[in-house]
């Protein structure tokens, strides 16, 4: 999926240039991106659909080679959301894709079962941690609270984390990984989210429930043993979350931890990026934190990652663009149409979830949710 993007990408870029003064000065990352190359289908043998999270493996361990791209699937083969159970691994060296893990649909310790979400990471110690935001019929009418699942590097489940602070781990994880200890930041978007058919008469849509949180989980990882939760703290709360017939639910999705200990959060429903200070140290919730940027090129910001030059890339849920933001001043630099699939209106709408930089920092991986593919932009 590349040539058809060309025309639109050029148009989008020129549109972005008019709105982002810095672009002309050549200070952004997106201006270096020229090509999009489809790498693989993310669909494993069992037919799971809807790729969500992307994680680039930091180490080789078990079935995984360093720099492999792990991708999880949110839907089963009938395309029901919250029912996907698989993680595939794409090896950039061999260009082969293989099944890394297939979790049981029902998993003890995971309320509601397994439907793998955008929350996933692989630690330097080789453990993989992935979120479940499950349903049985593809809608929030049957959603469960889910859990975080811990897998070894051979794809075997070794434990789960669940409890009152965990309710549909949803957004991509921000991680501080020190080897024998690690800190995870995970957004929870399921608290009191109702059946999608419950409509707010004022808006004609399901009600927005301002109960989404960001949970910080501190892990100890003894040599040769699975990670153990040492403590957990809600460091942000009050973000909007809403059931949705088409996309299951909408809530805070992108998380990225900065070098100054600021955690950035994409607040999808409010169409903004927020910042929480002292993220690894805070002992209480900062609420929704400080607004970094809002609206403009953002169109329901979802997944988020860092560029080598210290900018944030945020994917848009309501079109196929990725937006580059300078968090230091909150300026939106560019929007690039990375999924210009005109099968949707606007092109690429509803298609982008996971995003991750390549190990060398020369581009980024993203998933095209609508066609179940992994693409690299360079």
């Amino acid at each position: 999926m590349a040539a058809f993007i060309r025309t639109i990408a050029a148009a989008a870029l020129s549109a972005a240039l008019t709105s982002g003064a810095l672009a002309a000065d050549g200070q952004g990352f997106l201006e270096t991106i020229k090509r999009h190359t489809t790498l693989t289908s993310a669909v494993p043998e069992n037919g799971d659909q809807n790729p969500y999270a992307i994680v680039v493996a930091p180490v080789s361990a078990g079935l995984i080679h360093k720099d492999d791209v792990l991708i999880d699937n949110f839907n089963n083969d009938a395309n029901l959301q919250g029912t996907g159970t698989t993680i595939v691994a794409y090896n950039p060296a061999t260009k082969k894709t293989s099944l890394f893990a297939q979790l049981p649909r029902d998993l003890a310790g995971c309320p509601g079962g397994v439907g793998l979400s955008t929350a996933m990471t692989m630690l330097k110690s080789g453990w993989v941690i992935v979120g479940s935001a499950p349903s049985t019929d593809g809608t929030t009418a049957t959603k469960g609270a889910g859990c975080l699942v811990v897998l070894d590097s051979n794809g075997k489940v070794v434990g789960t984390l669940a409890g009152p602070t965990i309710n549909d781990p949803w957004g991509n994880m921000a991680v501080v990984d020190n080897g024998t200890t690690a800190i995870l930041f995970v957004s929870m978007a399921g608290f009191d989210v109702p059946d999608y058919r419950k409509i707010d008469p004022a808006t004609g849509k399901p009600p927005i429930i301002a109960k989404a949180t960001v949970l910080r989980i501190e892990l100890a990882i003894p040599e040769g043993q699975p990670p153990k939760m040492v403590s957990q703290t809600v460091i942000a709360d009050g973000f909007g979350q809403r059931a949705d017939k088409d996309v299951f639910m909408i809530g805070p999705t992108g998380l990225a931890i900065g070098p100054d200990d600021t955690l950035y959060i994409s607040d999808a429903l409010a169409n903004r990026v927020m910042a929480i200070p002292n993220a690894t140290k805070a002992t209480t919730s900062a609420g929704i934190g400080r607004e970094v940027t809002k609206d403009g090129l953002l169109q329901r910001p979802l997944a988020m990652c860092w560029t080598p030059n210290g900018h944030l890339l945020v994917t848009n849920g309501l079109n196929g663009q990725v937006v580059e933001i300078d968090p230091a001043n909150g300026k939106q630099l560019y929007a690039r149409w990375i999924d210009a699939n005109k099968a949707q209106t606007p092109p690429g709408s509803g298609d982008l979830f996971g995003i991750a930089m390549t190990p060398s920092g020369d581009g980024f991986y993203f998933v095209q949710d609508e066609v179940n593919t992994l693409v690299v932009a360079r």
Partner: protein
Amino acid sequence: MSESNGSGMGGGGKCPFATRRGFLAAAGGLIAAVGAGPNAEAATDTKTVAAAKPETIVEPFWGRHQGGIVTQAQKHTYFAAFDLTAKNRAEIVELLKTWTAAAAQMTQGKPARPIGSDLSVPAGDSADALDLSPARLTVTFGFGAGLFVKDGQDRYGLAAHRPAALVDMPRFNGDQLAQNLTGGDLSVQACADDPQVAFHAVRQLARLAYDVAQLRYTQTGFLPNSPEGTTSRNLMGFKDGTQTPPEKPTADNPLSRDDVVWVEAEGGDWMRDGSYLVFRRIRMALEHWDRTVVDFQEQVIGRRKYSGAPLGAEHEFDPLDLDATDKEGNPVIPDTAHVRLAAAASNDGAQIFRRGYAYNDGTNVTAERWPPWRQGLEYDAGLLFLSYQKDPRTGFIKIYENMAKLDMLNQYTTHVGSGLFACPGGPAEGEFIGQRLFEKA
């Protein structure tokens, strides 16, 4: 089946309605009464037909290959799959004998069985094609895996003769197969230039199978009346069938149609000169497609919509240049364009011979599988995909495995029915279809 045998099946004695012509003559004035034109009369038996350019309305039934495979596509098809309920192999042999005889008659424009003169019993033929031209009717028979093994049971002692190529179809990405549109122990593909003639043929055969085989599913299909020498457009508005194996190898294609279609010695005696039929009922999200801008439709297909030319070329039959790139190195024909993924060059040279039809089964409530996940009353229309090949493992299955995962067109299409059938070589006059299989077994 000879005409005298046909008369004999009518219940004994000479039957005045042994042929359509006989019936019409006996009915006296019926032609005028129903307003049938010269073609109707011409169709009443082969002698009259012969005077009216038989090659235009009659396709051969007996021969090395079954009709309806490389026969120039008729305008209509009626496809049927059957489940066998026969108690033993002898009943199947009897059925195939009966079907062969009836099909031979019908392709000549005659009733499946003599109609008979006794009005107190059901007639030998339903008579809905009585005054119609044979309309180039072909009837193509196929054997599904269930003839050989079903639910692990060797019901008819034929398991040892199941060809290796008659595999269980793998599950493909995106498959949404309905069980009542999938599988089947026997298949019948009736094609004709008149939809009523095609339906008539299957209807008679189904009736002759009562208590031995029962219908599992049926599917109608049609082709547009495209101008002579042009490639037909499918319901998506694109020319469909530009890339097809040529009758003889060309500089661009080392395989002829015969190379692609016909089983040779590897199929054993009974499949020699036969072919494997892959059936797929492919529903198109036409409402979604109609809302899609044309230039993107062209990127999805990899061809220009109106001219049929490959992207980057000017004319319909210009070769696909899969290596062409723009100045930034992006491919001119996208990585995931339909024509790229279907091309022999993308599949180690694999090719199939497509003989598909459009289908239109009205509307029903459905939920699209792709953003924006539209739901509601939508056309149940699309492609009745029929393809022939010498081995599905190196044909359809090989080609579609990758397409099912990557083809951009998958956002608009859903495979809801599927079947694979071994179509034996054609019967010599006096043989029945598949006879060499049963002689061997």
